[in-house]
């Protein structure tokens, strides 16, 4: 094993796949000469040249659409968005074109494309620069939405995404690019659609995904000291969702808290709560709880950010209320 940063894990995935497959290329703002706004693509221009590592103007709708066209015609583009907030300008091409191409063409044209970039709040960046888009895109049939929470997952899942013949969106974070973790020396892939039980436990299941798992981990450390045995599930992807893994876990713990960094209405937690009451009703000993971002745009003030975000305390409170303890 070796220790790498999250950004390096992503880079290794792209570099390995680009060495293997001539049709894979990377495009986006500042990815080439500047080596990436967050240095994910550092050195890639040097290795692959400007034909395969391509700087674009600030024109998200245009270059996303160009990538979709290229995917329809035999290439496998990786599109980097500086953050997913800016990909809203490209969302027409992601949702109306990429997601629907295969069905609209009666199976004739697939769209093997990866869209990736930073997602979710990353400090005091205010309303437009702090949004979490997992549930937003998970809503759309035809897409896959992947949420790597650590360097190991980032590499394994991105490699699978690049090889996938359907459009895959990768939700990264400016606040994770510097995170370190261990990855194997040799090549490995992680299948898209399988959750990971990060920790086994008996009293309660905590389900989460992406960056906020770091906060979940802190809360679990406190809870375990207090004698609460937590099972922690990292969904790894929110479309598809590994429902079987969730139901299996609830059959054992009978309680569930979902922690999500996005807004409550039309969320992944809402979907999970529906699924569990439908398919694990008899196993639930308490209502499914959730810890979410506040139901408002993300404001600039530090005080308001603290109020808005899921915190260790709010997670502990939700777990205890599910366990009916104080």
């Amino acid at each position, binding site marked *: 094993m070796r220790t790498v940063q999250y950004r390096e894990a992503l880079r290794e995935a792209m570099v390995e796949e680009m060495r293997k497959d001539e049709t894979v290329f990377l495009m986006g703002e*500042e990815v080439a000469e500047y080596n990436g706004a967050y240095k994910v693509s550092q050195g890639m221009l040097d290795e692959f040249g400007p034909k395969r590592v391509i700087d674009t*103007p600030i024109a998200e709708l245009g270059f996303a659409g160009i990538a979709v066209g290229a995917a329809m015609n035999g290439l496998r583009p990786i599109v980097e968005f500086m953050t997913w907030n800016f990909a*809203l300008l490209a969302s027409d091409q992601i949702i109306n074109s990429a997601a629907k191409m295969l069905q609209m063409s009666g199976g004739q044209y697939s769209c093997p494309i990866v869209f990736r970039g930073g997602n979710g709040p990353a400090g*005091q*960046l205010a309303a437009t620069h702090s949004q979490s888009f997992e549930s937003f895109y998970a809503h759309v049939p035809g897409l896959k939405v992947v949420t790597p929470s650590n360097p190991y997952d980032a590499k394994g899942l991105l490699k699978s995404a690049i090889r996938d013949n359907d459009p895959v969106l990768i939700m990264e974070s400016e606040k994770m690019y510097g995170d370190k973790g261990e990855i194997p020396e040799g090549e490995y892939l992680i299948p898209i659609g399988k959750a990971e039980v990060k920790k086994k436990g008996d009293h309660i299941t905590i389900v989460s995904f992406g960056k906020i798992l770091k906060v979940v981990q802190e809360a679990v450390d406190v809870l375990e000291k207090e004698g609460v045995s937590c099972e922690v599930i990292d969904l790894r992807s929110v479309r598809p969702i590994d429902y079987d893994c969730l139901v299996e876990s609830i059959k054992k713990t009978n309680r569930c808290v979902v922690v999500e960094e996005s807004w*409550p209405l039309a969320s992944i937690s809402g979907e999970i709560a529906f699924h569990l009451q439908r398919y694990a009703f008899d196993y639930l000993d308490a209502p499914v709880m959730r810890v979410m971002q506040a139901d*408002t745009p993300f*404001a600039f003030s530090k005080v308001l950010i603290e*109020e*808005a975000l899921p915190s260790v305390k709010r997670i502990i409170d939700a777990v205890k209320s599910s366990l009916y303890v104080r």
Partner: protein
Amino acid sequence: MPATTIEKPVNKKQKNDLGFSKKQYLKWYKDMLIMRKIEERVGHLYIQQKFGGFCHLYIGQEALVAGTASACHKDDKHITAYRDHAHPIALGIHPKFMVAELYGKKTGMSKGKGGSMHMFSKDVNLMGGHGIVGAQIPMGAGIAFADQYKGNKAVTYCSFGDGAARQGALHETFNMAMMWKLPVVFIIENNNYAMGTSVKRTTNVEDMSEMGKSYHMPSKVVDGMSVEAVHHAIEEASERARKGDGPTLLDIRTYRYKGHSMSDPQKYRTKDEVEDYKGKDPISQVLKTIQTNKLASESEIKKIQDDVKAIVEESVVFAEESPELEAHELYEDVYTQNDYPFIKE
């Protein structure tokens, strides 16, 4: 980049052969010096982590807002990008409210909810501060649309960067703005870079004033290091808009001395290039004009400089001493409806 010179229109304010009054020169000097000094200070405070978020400095580009402010009317509207610390100052807002916004304090221009990228002030018709690159291009035209609709004589000044000019919405907007003769002046704050990408790496047509041509939009290159040139160009464009003849595109060539934001190593340009532009510094140029034409004595100039120092100091103290927001304010200003049923668990 070459800048074509602007022929001076006959100017009613003409008091001397400079074309502008002594008062105007001293105001430009003081306003631009406040912008410069406050941003130098703000840059240090940011490094000391006195406030968070992004911090995009306008240093070097001051003549754009100073020349726009002197040429515009009171009812005119303004909209710009996230590089927006200087715009409120040019329009007459005390800088302490801008600094308080950087600090995310209750007394800030946007009540501490917007931060560095979102300076708004209804008092002076500053309609943001926008962080999504290019978003203000159609919005600017829309603001002008409303004034035209209501029969007002106001003009909208819509500023955006050379990078923002690459968004597709620019073309959609230019077409409609020309078709409907909207009273808007499109200002490219052309500092030659979008983060690390120079203009010539994003286009075949390096002269951005060409972008208006396929819509028959009157377009012009302007020297953005000269506040007089900016003033003249804005005056001419706004007269056209006010007469009902529609929009103008001004490609104002300027330069940012600092990095894109505070975390930019600036490997994409040379130190010589930066020094070159500093040689044409807009504030030094105005000061030189004041001195060579004896528009003010050395002691008057010193007094301005001392005043500016005091204003900067006062602004920082005000921001630091202002109260933080309270948690419940998260649920205010989201809807105009007072009892909107938020989901709270």
